[in-house]
């Protein structure tokens, strides 16, 4: 019998639905339709970029690391892509490839600093972020480059109210979900995040999964940068900071039920977390909430939403008595094992009393 355990992803979904209901009511009070095409597009668009970043961030957080450099990777990626494309559609493949390769390289550096030099992810990526910031400031002044219309379509078109960018983000989330659950690297990432020493003793090579997570995280930040370039039509050296993506993505990941200490969590939870933030933002925008007050609400929502399940997520023993207990509720497997245990033990009782003489 499976033990029923309310998955944090389910709780996230619950909070999201609650947010949607409250949002819809609030939006209706100002005479707007929450589920209108324009609003749905607004919410989903708001989710796409942060969603991509959060997917990558989930990977590193699962590995018990962090990536604070994503903001700068995003900016760099948008600039690289826009300058390489330089307005010509023929350059798109090359631009995308070069951009993602550079991002992967940055991720590799992050991963190596964290695993080989043993610098805590927080500091390592803070440092790499500063370095990237320096590179951005020295090499780019203001927005530059030019994204051809063909590439802008990714950010501008949609299927009905659903933007293409959101579809891409969800598809990539599915790929990463598969990676986490169906590949050894995924399983090992959970292990390394859960406890690197245990992973090592179990024969897992602890560096590759974490390095892979960092590389993927930067690549996803790069993808977010590409998406931003496509939406902006140019590359911008500050577009990453503008969105505050580093801290917000970590907040979304934790909101989605992923343990900040690593080893537990899911991609869908993170997407749910991103959705909650997007819905709250959208409702506040429609309500024309004072921008300063928006930050207050954001802060409160993040903490409150995490508080809903954080206590519950702590591993507890099964109760025996009282509601849900094995004695009152009935745990079939345990009950079934009972006679067997009893039989074995009484058998043992005979043998051990016979063998007792051997001990002083």
């Amino acid at each position: 019998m499976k033990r029923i355990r309310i998955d944090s992803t389910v709780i996230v979904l619950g909070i999201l639905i609650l947010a949607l209901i409250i949002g819809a009511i609030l939006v209706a009070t100002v005479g707007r339709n929450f589920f209108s095409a324009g609003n749905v597009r607004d919410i989903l668009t708001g989710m796409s970029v942060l969603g991509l970043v959060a997917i990558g961030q989930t990977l590193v957080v699962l590995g018990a690391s962090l990536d604070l450099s994503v903001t700068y990777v995003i900016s760099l990626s948008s600039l690289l892509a826009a300058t390489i494309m330089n307005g010509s559609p023929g350059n798109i493949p090359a631009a995308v490839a070069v951009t993602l390769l550079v991002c992967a390289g940055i991720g590799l550096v992050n991963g190596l600093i964290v695993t080989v030099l043993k610098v805590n992810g927080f500091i390592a990526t803070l440092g790499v972020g500063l370095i990237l910031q320096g590179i951005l400031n020295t090499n780019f002044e203001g927005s530059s480059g030019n994204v051809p219309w063909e590439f802008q379509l990714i950010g501008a078109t949609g299927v009905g109210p659903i933007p293409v960018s959101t579809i891409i983000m969800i598809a990539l989330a599915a790929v990463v979900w598969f990676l986490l659950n169906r590949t050894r690297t995924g399983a090992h990432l959970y292990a390394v995040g859960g406890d690197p020493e245990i992973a090592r003793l179990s024969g897992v090579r602890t560096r590759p999964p974490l390095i892979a997570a960092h590389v993927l995280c930067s690549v996803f930040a790069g993808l977010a940068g590409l998406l931003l370039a496509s939406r902006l039509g140019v590359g911008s050296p500050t577009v990453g900071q503008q969105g505050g993506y580093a801290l917000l993505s970590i907040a979304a990941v934790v909101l989605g039920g992923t343990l900040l200490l690593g080893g537990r969590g899911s991609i869908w939870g993170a997407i749910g977390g991103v959705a909650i933030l997007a819905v709250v933002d959208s409702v506040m925008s429609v309500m024309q909430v004072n921008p300063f007050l928006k930050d207050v609400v954001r802060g409160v929502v993040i903490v409150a939403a995490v508080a809903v399940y954080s206590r519950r997520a702590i591993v507890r023993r099964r109760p025996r008595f009282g509601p849900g207990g094995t004695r009152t509720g009935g745990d079939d497997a345990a009950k079934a094992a009972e006679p067997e245990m009893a039989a074995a033990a009484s058998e043992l009782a005979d043998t051990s009393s016979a063998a007792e003489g051997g001990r002083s």
Partner: protein
Amino acid sequence: MTAAVDTQAVLEVSGIRKSFFGVEVLKGIDFDVRPGEVHGLVGENGAGKSTLMKIIAGVQPADEGAVRYRGDEVHHTHPRQAMDDGIVTVFQEFTLLPERTVAQNVYLGREPRRGGFVDRRAMVTRTAELLADLGVSFIDPQARVGSLTVAEQQIVEIVKALSFDAQVISMDEPTAALSDREVELLYAIIRRLTSRGVAVIYVSHRLKEIFDLCDRITILKDGALVSTDATADLTTDELVRRMVGRSIQSYFPDAVDGTVVGEPRLELEGCGNAFVDEVSLSLRAGEIVGIAGLQGSGRTELVEGIFGIDPFVRGSMRVDGASTRITSARAAVRAGLALVSEDRKAQGLALGQSVLDNSLLVIRSVFSARTSSSRREVPGVLSSLEISSRGLDQEVRFLSGGNQQKVVLAKWLLTQPQIVLFDEPTRGIDVGAKYAVYQLMRDLAAQGKAVLMVSSELPEVIGMSDRILVMHDGELVAELPAGSAEHEILGAATGAIHPHDEATDGGAR
């Protein structure tokens, strides 16, 4: 026993030396195992057994010396390499991830794949098969390990090792958390392995197991090799003498002269919480009460309930006759209780802190005003427990298991508790240290304190207790007098016999 004396050794180590922070913990060890053999490795806490196992497993490199495997010298620098070669280890510390399922843990590091992707179904079915092989049906391969009890986790740990196609399996105290029944099942497995020609290295502080299982026994003392003999050539006494360097007359010290059983110090009346129910018992001054029961019968929950970790929600409690409600560990400590918990690494010690800081942990937590006076008592308490450490500043994680347990004892003794609850006090500690713990219990009793001891080792319960309470499925089901036989206790513990149908003399139920 089918001693395979004349076959070629499958694994051989020679001249192994290892130092930590300049202290040599292995001083040139020669050791070998042959196919089909169970080779016991014994020694006091800190003798270097685990370190040797780790070197064989490729976890730590040796400073000097060679490891030869199937004739060739090997230099494993990562456990992976050793495993790939067929050397598998059940480590003393659990190597399970609480957030992952049993199957995921068992196959961690070599998940079965189909078409390049992890084959989850195969993983689950194979785990189920392995569990069934062990005769265990109560562990769901898809359950999260964190939701299992310590004993169940230990079984998973063993299953994990068995899932390899190994040539050499080292087991570092595999039975520390197992009950006799499961130990018996493990015996069967080991015999099956050896009959297939697998070599087993077996480390345990339970000497009975060593004699039951092993073909040869190697004794370590203070990092040096004492002897390797065929089991038949050794007696228990001789083994103990070589391990400890002196012979221990009796495993269980007698009560200190002048110990008088006095007034009840702790009385429970119909207490219960989510884990235990209807607990009524009384503990008198000068008395040692043992609690027996099967794994998962709720003994730990009982002491944790008394200690306020999972406070009782029903019933009443009296300390020294005064009605008391204990709803937190803090209240318990203030009421004069102490709990030597089952899992010292998780619940007892801050491993990265010094011996001194750990000894003062409770004082600082509850009686912070007494810190400086207690600080002066620390050296005395530590030396009375014969802790061997490199000083008050040594980090506790660098101590061996037995010495760590003594630090836990020291931390409680400093509070001068009146009622001491011991949960598995001798788990994973050597004979010498065990004896010291027993002696300590006797001394406490002699000082008029009340002692409650939970133990999975029946001889210990029988040897130490003035009365024996038996738990079954969250309830106290029997009270037996001192010196009851094992089968009586087991009968009550399994629910096969219901002694409280017969007349018992008050106390519990």
